[in-house]
């Protein structure tokens, strides 16, 4: 059976902010299914008591001193902006409510 449905792929695309086309959905659904079936092999490994590895370097407490260092000028900061106004980054109207931090 398929690991992922066309609907699930459409949902993933929305979550990922990708305006995929109908044709893409068809191709992706098939391709993601192949990939997910293959990567699901990790489930064959008995690893219940194995700790996960998120970092391969054995470092902890890498901290910087609370000292100001020069950053970018506003011109540099905005140099790559697709649209700017009043020294701010301009974006189209926002639908979503802000999400709490």
């Amino acid at each position, binding site marked *: 059976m398929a690991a992922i449905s066309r609907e699930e792929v459409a949902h993933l695309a929305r979550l990922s902010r990708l305006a995929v086309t109908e044709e893409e959905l068809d191709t992706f659904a098939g391709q993601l299914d192949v990939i997910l079936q293959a990567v699901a092999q990790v489930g064959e490994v008995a690893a219940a008591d194995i700790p996960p590895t998120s970092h391969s370097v054995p470092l902890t407490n890498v901290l910087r*001193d*609370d000292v100001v*260092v020069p950053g970018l000028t506003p011109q540099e900061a905005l140099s790559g902006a697709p649209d700017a*106004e009043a*020294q701010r*980054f301009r974006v189209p109207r926002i639908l979503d409510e802000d999400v709490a931090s």
Partner: protein
Amino acid sequence: MTTTLPAYDEVVARYEPVIGLETHVELGTNTKMFCGCPTDFGGEPNTRVCPVCLGLPGSLPVANKAAIEATIRIGLALNCSIADWCRFARKNYFYPDMPKDFQISQYDEPLCFEGYLDVEVNGELVCIGIERVHLEEDTGKTLHVGGATGRIHGATESLVDYNRAGIPLVEIVTKPVPGTGALAPEVARAYVTELRDVIRSLGVSDVRMEEGSLRCDVNTSLNLPGEDWGTRTETKNVNSLRSVERAVRSEIIRQASVLDAGGRITQETRHFHEDTGDTTPGRSKETATDYRYFPEPDLVPLAPDAAWVAELKAALPELPRLHRRRLQEQWGLSDADMQSVLNAGAVELIEATVAAGATPAAARKWWLGELSRRANETGVELADVGATPAQVAELQGLVDAGKLNDKLARAVLEGVVAGEGSPTQIMTNRGLEVVSDTGALTAAVDEAIAANPDIADKIRSGKVAAAGALVGAVMKTTRGQADAKTVRELILERLGAQS
């Protein structure tokens, strides 16, 4: 809606509220959480940014040691355990004020956990359980243009400034607080007040709700006695201590009206409105995005060793509640008197005034009397009324030295508040000093006697009470700068009458 809301007392008589508070505090570090950009307020848009806090491709975060220590100190002050190993996590969601479209936060491994904070509500101690204290980064500021009053709805476009993006943000989450009954709103307010005082005493943040360096979300649910806790709502945008109280109260009433009507509470985010004092629904949690938390691979784990934590613990200041107890004893105040001092927000001011040499009684008299009155009139915080503890102490010193009487002292205080200088300067500049030299006084008295022969005769014939009229006359000519008692004695003496 037109349905009339039930009365609060009637509601809390039938339902049991459970509250919980989630507080965000901006730390007062020199630099941001993960880069060396300054955190100072104001400043032109996008002038405190770098590749890291702009989330430019290729940039990497490095954690600010001062922010980590501040968070551990807050945790210790809230009686929390400090994790001996924990990681940052990425909270993934798209929003333009978040430069990386994920927030570096902490998920199931908070830096501090399992603590409590005792708060006093009319003399009673309430223990608020602290679930977690963790560290994350703040977002930028979005300006909504077009549409009404800068609101997001109806806006035609938005403008983003990333100066605030990446400022260290400490999140403090309480455990659910049941069993407070009708006091729930007061308890919520008392907790936030106490938390603010604790954090201020640590000196890690200016914790000003108006400026958003302390933000509060309030969770509220209702249940019938003996039943399970109800569905909770999360009220955001609660920006003052008073609002915390009002938000809980209005949400309790709203939920009761829904439940009474046989409806069910939906788990949702609601927004509090200062003007109306009620809440309106925001995003409902059912439709909330899946944040897809995972360990931040660009930052290595934190592992505060015992020695480091012990060092920070040893340096903690006295907790505000205990500090207040000590002051109350030192000042010899009743609980009621201390309460009025607290309500006036005058503890630190009186403390400083006493330290500057005034007696506790005198310091309290000025701050709770004349100055509180002025603060109320002008609608400012007592601390911002315009007089410093040092000036008040100096003023009292002049009174004790007999250079000012009560009336003159108040006049001088006027000048202080008006910013005319130090009490001594104002006294001299305005020539308000008590006339103590009897030569001048005697002259004034003789003048008054000569001007009122009949009254003088009455006094001579023993009608001492009549002296009041002459005293008045003398005070008039000396523009109130004489000491009335001295004047009276002088009159009787000149007229050979016995007092």
